[in-house]
Structure formats: structure tokens, C-alpha cells
């Protein structure tokens, strides 16, 4: 009896010790990640905010200038506004095809047909290819005289422009490359969405006499609106982060017609050594992305069915 009581007490004591120790054990497991995130994300964010209030070329010591960088960007930097406009134009060219083409692919591939796996593979390849390879590939494809694009267009008697040299066509040409690269990724998102649509809805509609087209437009599409919304948000955010493709394909030209946000930011930071100015740009970018996402979330209530 006494012995068993001692034992119980002993067990309870070890347990309590264990619990006290166990309560904090989790910290050890997350420590490397948290240290990394603090060092490589949070501290840089704080530093970036501070730097955006400074004028600094990395040679002479930084000079605190308050909101001057922001004021100058917004009121005096004409190229900044052009670049911002370009970025929106870029997004504008991308949105519709990135929502529609992958949907068509997913609708075709959702049926249990043969070689499905092989087809899916074909649309994935662009996704795993680097922007450098893709950029070079398309520079060559878009070549005005010897490129494949204009050669194919000549079959239907269209005399294609010199895509990447033409200030109007350069942007849509680059945008189509982005659409092409995103095909497979967006397609998988749609396929996942399609699998989430319960079969009984389609069956019920069929019994009520709905044909395949009205089923597609009245059942499939409304139920895929959350996926479309996600694709929309990700595509717009993506355009604000594009650098490599522009660097390889156009270097922002001709006459800054494809100069987009990060490219200009890089020119300011690493070309002109305006570190404070570029930091201010980075913060405006964060603000823009946040605002766009919020607007889209608001608008989503009007058309997304959850």
C-alpha cells in the first residue's frame, strides 16, 4: 500500500517535471526556423522601412530625409508612374488568358481518357523550365525575321511585327510567355477544383434535362469561381514580382515599354545605388499588393460562390 503510494507520487512527480519541461520543448523544434525568419525576413523588413526614410548610396553615410523618397516617387518620378502603369498593363494582358486556357485544359483532362498523364506532362514542362531558358527561347521565337511565330503567322498571310522591338507589341508578347509558363500550374488548380465538385449535382441536372454545355456554365463554372479567384490574385501578384523574364527578354525596353516594377526597383538599387529610394519603392509595392488583394477579396463577394 505505502509502496504503491510512493510509486504513484513518484510517477506524478516525474510527470509534472516532464510536463513543465514538455511545455517549452516545442521551442527547441521551431528555434532554427524562427531564428532564420527573424534574421532573414523580419530584421530586413525593419531595416528596409528605416532605409526608406534615408538617402543612401552605400558609399557616404545614410542621411535621414523623412518622407522625401516617397514624395519624390509619387510627385516627380515620371518613370515610376510609367512603370506602375506598365505593370498593370502586363497584368491586364495576363489575367483573361490565364483564367480561360487552363480551364479549358482542365475540363478536357478531367475526363478519364487515355494518355491523360502524357498530356498533363506536356503542359507542365513550361512550368519547370527556368526563366532564363524560357526568355531566351521566346526571344528567338519572337524574332522579327527568322522567328517561328512570324513564320507560322505567314501561313495565314499575317505579316507579324518585330515583337520585342515594337513598343506596343513587346508587352503583350512578354505577357503571353507568362501565360504559357503558368498553364500547367493553373490547370492543376482547376483539376483539384473540379474534383471537389460532387457528381450528384451533375447527375441531378442531367435528369432535369440539362445538356453538357448548360451543366458546364451553370454548375462547373460557378463552383470553380474560388479557384478562378485564387488564380486571379496570384497572377496579379506575380506580375509585380517579375524580374528574370524582363531582364533576359527586353531589359525593360524598347523605350521602357516593358520596364516593370521590380525591374525598375533593381535599376534604382543596384544600377544607380539609390538604396533608400529603392526601399521606398519596395514599401509602395508591398502596399500596392496588399491593396489589390483586399480589393479583389471585396469584389470576390460579388462573384465567387463558396
Amino acid at each position: 500500500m505505502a509502496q504503491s503510494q510512493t510509486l504513484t507520487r513518484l510517477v506524478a512527480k516525474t510527470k509534472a517535471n516532464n510536463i513543465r519541461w514538455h511545455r517549452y520543448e516545442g521551442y527547441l523544434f521551431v528555434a532554427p526556423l524562427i531564428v532564420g525568419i527573424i534574421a532573414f525576413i523580419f530584421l530586413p523588413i525593419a531595416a528596409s522601412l528605416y532605409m526608406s526614410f534615408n538617402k543612401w548610396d552605400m558609399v557616404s553615410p545614410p542621411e535621414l530625409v523623412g518622407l522625401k523618397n516617397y514624395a519624390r516617387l509619387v510627385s516627380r518620378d515620371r518613370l515610376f508612374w510609367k512603370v506602375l502603369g506598365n505593370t498593370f498593363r502586363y497584368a491586364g494582358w495576363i489575367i483573361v488568358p490565364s483564367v480561360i486556357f487552363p480551364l479549358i485544359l482542365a475540363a478536357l483532362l478531367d475526363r478519364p481518357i487515355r494518355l491523360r498523364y502524357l498530356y498533363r506532362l506536356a503542359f507542365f514542362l513550361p512550368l519547370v523550365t527556368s526563366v532564363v531558358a524560357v526568355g531566351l527561347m521566346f526571344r528567338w521565337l519572337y524574332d522579327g525575321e527568322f522567328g517561328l511565330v512570324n513564320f507560322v503567322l505567314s501561313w495565314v498571310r499575317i505579316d507579324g511585327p518585330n515583337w520585342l522591338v515594337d513598343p506596343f507589341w513587346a508587352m503583350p508578347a512578354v505577357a503571353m510567355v507568362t501565360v504559357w509558363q503558368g498553364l500547367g500550374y493553373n490547370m492543376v488548380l482547376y483539376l483539384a477544383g473540379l474534383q471537389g465538385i460532387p457528381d450528384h449535382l451533375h447527375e441531378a441536372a442531367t435528369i432535369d434535362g440539362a445538356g453538357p454545355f448548360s451543366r458546364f456554365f451553370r454548375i462547373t463554372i460557378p463552383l470553380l469561381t474560388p479557384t478562378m479567384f485564387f488564380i486571379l490574385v496570384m497572377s496579379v501578384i506575380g506580375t509585380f514580382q517579375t524580374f528574370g523574364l524582363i531582364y533576359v527578354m527586353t531589359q525593360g525596353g524598347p523605350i521602357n515599354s516593358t520596364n516593370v516594377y521590380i525591374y525598375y526597383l533593381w535599376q534604382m538599387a543596384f544600377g544607380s545605388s539609390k538604396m533608400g529610394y529603392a526601399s521606398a519603392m519596395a514599401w509602395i509595392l508591398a502596399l500596392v499588393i496588399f491593396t489589390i488583394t483586399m480589393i479583389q477579396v471585396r469584389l470576390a463577394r460579388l462573384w465567387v460562390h463558396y
Partner: protein
Amino acid sequence: MRAARVDRVASRRQQELVANTITHILLIVLGLAALAPFWWMISTSFKTEFEAFQLPPTWLPLEPTLEAYGDLFLDQPFGIFFYNSVKIAVLGVGGQLITSSLAAFAFARLDFPGKNVLFIIVLSTMMVPYAVTVIPLYIVMHRIGWVNTHLPLIVPAMLSSAYGTFLLRQFMFSLPVELEDAARIDGCSSFGIYRRIALPLMKPALATLGVFSFMASWNNFFGPFIFLDRKYLFTVQLGVALVQRQWYTSWPRLMAGSVVVTLPVLLVFLLLQRYFVRGISLTGIKG
């Protein structure tokens, strides 16, 4: 009666056949259109400079040659570029698998004060544009002498993958807890449970994360571009961009470069593609 039913079944089969044929035709056309750029890249890489500028263009090289590849490798130290890319990817991915699986295990299975807040903080970092952090990172790396080393590309990748933590945590939730409970009753420590039970069960998710991160690291352009400007430190991506700077319109050579940087990821992808698809549908996020 019976004949009518047979008829209906037959016509239904016919309909299906037609639908399948149309689907196949559409998919073949779209698939070829999506792959045409690759064909053009590969075919050009085997052409001579002269043939590349021939009109009308040739779909297959008339006299296939490895000249462009030879020029590429003689001109630039691609062997070194490869070594650099592999080194950065392997160390970064390896470290990331360890730190994120440790953190994911804790977030999914252990209880500690402030766990949820901490997890939300980790997640929120995924929304921070790289542009916001890259300038101060560059300055810090410059101060501590890490610019023009591979460290700024390896160390942050090893330690700060919110994406990896999120993916692995999601996966951990789909695993049964009973095994771990049993081990705990038998006196196994938390680390033992992580090491002997959770980690082996997480293998498929680790593979998914590994594939994604490897590709992201291999294809990364912006990072190496910012932090490296000595040629012997270049990754393959920078190497090919360098070839473009020198030989702006030497198309066979540039296409050979594109083939060379694409092949390794292509192999990884073809071997491990099932993990890749799962990664997108598991999180809805690309690495």
C-alpha cells in the same frame, strides 16, 4: 423494347467515342502548341549558325551538329557553373527539409505557449514580397562579407522556409497520432518520436518539398544575380545569361545553353512528377 435499349446503349457509346476523339484532337493540338517552343529550342541547338538564319526555317536540322554545345562549353566554364548550382541546391534543400520538418512537427504535434501566434507569424512571411527584403539583405551580406560567396543563397534558404513548414504541417495532420501516442507511453522522447516515427511517415511530403525546392533553387535567377558577380561563383542560370550578354544573337549557342540548364530539372521532374502535382494541390502554392 429490347432493341430500343440496345440502340440507346449503342448510341451512347458512339457519343462517348465522338466526345473522346474530339477531346484527344483538341489536347493534341494544344499540347503540340505548348511544346513547340521546346522543339524549336532543341532543333536550333543542333543547327549551324548558318542554318539558324535560313528562310524558310527548317523544323529538323539539315546537318545536325554538336558545334553549339562545344562552343558553349569551351567558351565558359559550365562545369563549374553546374557544380555551383548543385552545391547551392543540395545544401539549401537539405537544410530546409530539416528545419521545416522539425518546425512542422512541433506545430502539428507539440503544445507550447504562443504556438498559434508563432505559426501565423511564420505564415505571414509568405506574403512579404522578396523585393522588400532583398535590399537590406544585400546590405547586410555586403557588411559581413557574404556578397560573392554562396552563403546568401544557401543560409536563408536553409533556415527560413515558411512554405516548407506549412506544407509539412498540413501533411502531418493527415497522419494518425496513435503511433506517436504509443511511442510516448513507451517512454520515447519528443525528438525520438520526430526522428523515428514522424520523419519516416513524412517521406512522401518531404519528397514533394524536396522536388519543389530543388527546382526553385536550380531555376532561381534573381538571387544569384544580385549576390554574385564573380564568374567562378556563377550558377548555370547566370552562366547562360552571361552567354547571352556576349553572343546576343548566336542562336544555336543560346539554345544549347537553354537545353543544358533545362535538362537537370527536367530529369528530376520526370522522375518525381507525382510528388510535384501533389505539392500544388496540397497547398495551392508554388514554391
